[in-house]
């Protein structure tokens, strides 16, 4: 978790965290209704902490992966690298990336065709 340096930074951190808290809470509520169980506010709070910590590590990891590859932008490759330890997750992500790729290619092709027809 990156330490907040400024007061404004810490403020925004807090607000982001509360956003996360809220959304985690909502998701948990939704799921608990489906599952027919109850979740205590404490559970939601700790889950939020957990997700928050996880987001922090993921962010720094992605950043360092991208830096290691000599880039300034985080790419799908970095995310795949992040998921390398969990094979199931990795394969899902890979599938997803391929889908996006195919879609983009199609789009590009359509655009090209459209241009050709247009001119």
């Amino acid at each position, binding site marked *: 978790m990156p330490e907040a340096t400024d007061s404004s930074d810490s403020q925004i951190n807090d607000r982001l965290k509360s956003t996360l808290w809220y959304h985690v809470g909502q998701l948990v509520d939704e799921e608990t209704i489906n599952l027919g169980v109850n979740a205590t*506010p404490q559970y939601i709070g*700790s889950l939020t902490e957990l997700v928050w910590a996880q987001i922090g590590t993921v962010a720094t990891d992605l950043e360092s992966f991208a830096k290691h590859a000599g880039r300034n932008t985080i790419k799908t490759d970095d995310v795949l690298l*992040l998921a390398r*330890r*969990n094979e199931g997750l990795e394969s899902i992500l890979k599938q997803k990336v391929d889908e996006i790729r195919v879609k983009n290619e199609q789009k590009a092709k359509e655009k090209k065709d459209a241009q050709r027809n247009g001119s």
Partner: protein
Amino acid sequence: MDIDDDGLGLTGGEVFVPSSQRYEPCSEPPRKKRRTRQILADSDDEISSSQASETSVTLPTSTSKEFIAIDDELLGQERSKYEHVLHKPAFVESQKNEFVTQIDQPWSSPTRIRGPRWRKKSLTPSPSPETGPGSHEVERTTIVANLGDDVLVADDFDDDEIEALMADRDLGTSASISVGSGASVPALQRQSSKNMRQTTLFGLHTTQRQAQSRPSATQAHNWRLAERDEPPTHHKIDEVAMRKWIFPLNVGTIRDYQYNIVHKALYNNILVALPTGLGKTFIAASVMMNWYNWTKSAQIVFMAPTKPLVAQQIEACFHIAGIPRSQTTLMTGEIPPDVRREEWQTKRVFFMTPQTMINDLKTGIADPKRIVLVVVDEAHKAQGNYAYVEIVRFLHRFNLSFRVLALTATPGSTVETVQKVVDGLDIARVEIRTEDSIDIQAFVHQRNIELELFDYSDEIQMCLDLFSKAVKPVLDKLCSQNASWMKDPTRITLYGLMQAKKQWFASDAGRKASQGVKGMVLACFQPLLPLAHNLELLKFHGVGPFYRKMKVFQDESGKGQGAGRAGGRPPSETRIMVFAHYRESAEEICRVLNRHEPMIRAHVFVGQSNTKGSDGMDQKKQTEIIKKFKAGTYNTIVATSIGEEGLDIGEVDLIVCYDCSKSPIRMLQRMGRTGRKRAGNIVMLLMRDKEEGDYYKAKDNYQKMQEMIESGKEFTFHTDRSPRIVPKGINPSVSKEHVDIPIENTQPGSVESVEPKRSRGKNKKKPPKKFHMPDNVETGFTFLGTKKKKSRLEEEKERLQASKHKKKRDPSDEDIAVMPADSEILLTPAQEADLEARYATIPGTEEQFIQAIDVRNQPEKLRRLDKTTLVGHSKATRDVVQAFGLARNSTQYKQRPIQPAEEDLRLLYRQSVAELQQIEAPFYVSQTNTVAAASQADALPELNNLFGSPAKTSKEKPNQAKKRASKRVISDDDDDG
């Protein structure tokens, strides 16, 4: 060591997660997306899935809103099936006027009657007609036509050009021909103007438009140079200076053609062909000055074929353009290389002969990358392997951004030769003015050309008779072998004989002839060739030279008598130049003329090489003679071809051409020596018959050549090799101003002192050869055959390729996600209140803390893999669970049994020692001091090592395993999404 105590102590950011991978918040979105994708994808299963979802609308499911919306859309599409049955007036609007290029009436649908069609005015593009959606095709054709018009108009003007064109227009008349190739017209525009052909609705081609558009090969249009993409130059550019370009006014009036040419020459590699005496030097100086100012450290080279010519240009550059003398140097082969090297390092403007230049480039004294402008004087020489061509080729290997300015009075006699020059110097444009061009007419001085025809004198006639008698038998022999068709020995020429010889040997008869006949023919030709040359001398240069040549040939002699017939009536101010082909005749003429001293003070002016019978003149002597000629010490110069080119002696009033050349270039250059500052006379002395014919031929050739070059159709230009160099954004504006000439330039002797002094020190050693390398060149050794080592270049290439490949393959990564604004993410006040109410408040007064999860509280969970939905357990998780299981099971095992033998030994030893110490301590110590002490000191730790550690490790094992496992849990959590 004690891991059990704090082995699971978690610090700040680390969080433990139970082994279950049910990551619920994430499991929903992917599912959703997958559904939407199926609908978007254009595949066969889409239909089935969409139909399925259609039916599913009625069912109460938990599908998201987004999903339902898509279903609605699909339903809407389904409904339109019956649309074509119903009548729907598609075109309700009133008929509109249509403006088209051809007014033939095409078919129109009965359901939709089109409006009236009008012929569009041909060149002013009409406002694009508004038509209904049904008339797409009609609309398209007209629009294409419009587009074509626009492009044509746009092609004709480019930004760099407009200024120059305006200047032309001011002048009222313009005979400027600017010819460029269309190679760099932006691709899109060209496509539309070239590939699109206007057709009628029936697919027939219309003829109107084609008549207007000229075929692109001959199209003389200017391209949008300023907008061309090119790699930025490596030269350091002075951006402030580059905002304007200076047209110096130091010589007085602005000549429009000079202005135009200078302006174009700044951005293009240009070949300027101006008649002699119209200020080519001025153009060169202006361009040089501008590039000198624009760049900070780049070098400029001016080249002319001979040293006197080079020296002449320096003066002009000093006094017109004001390039500081301290930055200028004159270098010819006379300057030793070490001095030259120093000059190359310190100076920026170089006046050189091409041979010196190429030598310096080859030895590495000169750095080809620093050169930004090469001015080539007498550019018509740039053919074949002349140093000019070599230099440009050489520079091109190292340096992609340098400008070439080629100057000549006579670009060439045929289109092919001009093309050679264009090829050799990477020319992108030709600027040609002839004496007939309107814009230069005002500046051309009148020249009177007199023709004087001569018949052979009696002596010559006699010599000819004798000559023919001598040669006749040999010639007859040749004729009998069909080797020559020339029967009259007085008409043989060198060229004709050579040709005949070649033909005969190539012909059937020649190839099949026996060795003897061949030898005979060869033996006949051998003496004839020099004799033919001698005959030419006799005919056109008089008996004297003929005699001397014949002497050399060791043949019979003709009585020598001078044939001097030069006309020169001398007011003291006049200067006369006499041109002759051969040195012998030049000397002869000079001798004859000098009989009239002091009225005629003549001197020969010949080249450097020594020949039989006469010594050459070195360049020093040549410049000296020119100086004396200008000063008036000599008032007549008798020159061979060396005097033809480039010498700028303003006041030559009379040119005498003692003989005549068929070559128009040489004739023109000769004539160009006069009429520079005042009107001049030219006297041509021609022998009746052959020379007369030659003269008319030359004149005819010249005119034809000019016409052909002017039309400029047949040239292919090298626009790709002519970078603009000036960066894309910069469009220098003109500033016509008087250039301040630095004081150092005007001081007397400034021109002479430009030449660097001979080497100062004793260090006459040749400087070491230095190798300049073009960019992206791989140097050093490469390993072949082994796969281990790859050359740097290859690796880089591969890397590049890989990255390119990746880019192509991975379009998903091309667009970068946008950072959402804070306001979008952060909670609204309402949501905050909701949060407070639902999650943040807990009944009761006790403070609640969120703690790190203590794994020890859930020992059972750690040893079991939970159920997963989407994402399976990772290997790491499985490992951890396994490890925990093992760790737990291992505690049930007994400790590893220590081998009884070891145990016994230890106990035995301890007991014995203790006993010994207890029973007879003092005695034993005194007696067995050495033994006991040694055994106690050494054996104990040894034993400890031996027995202690195995026991410890066996105890440790589960703990260690636990520790590792816990660590894995952490890392597992951290890394898995």
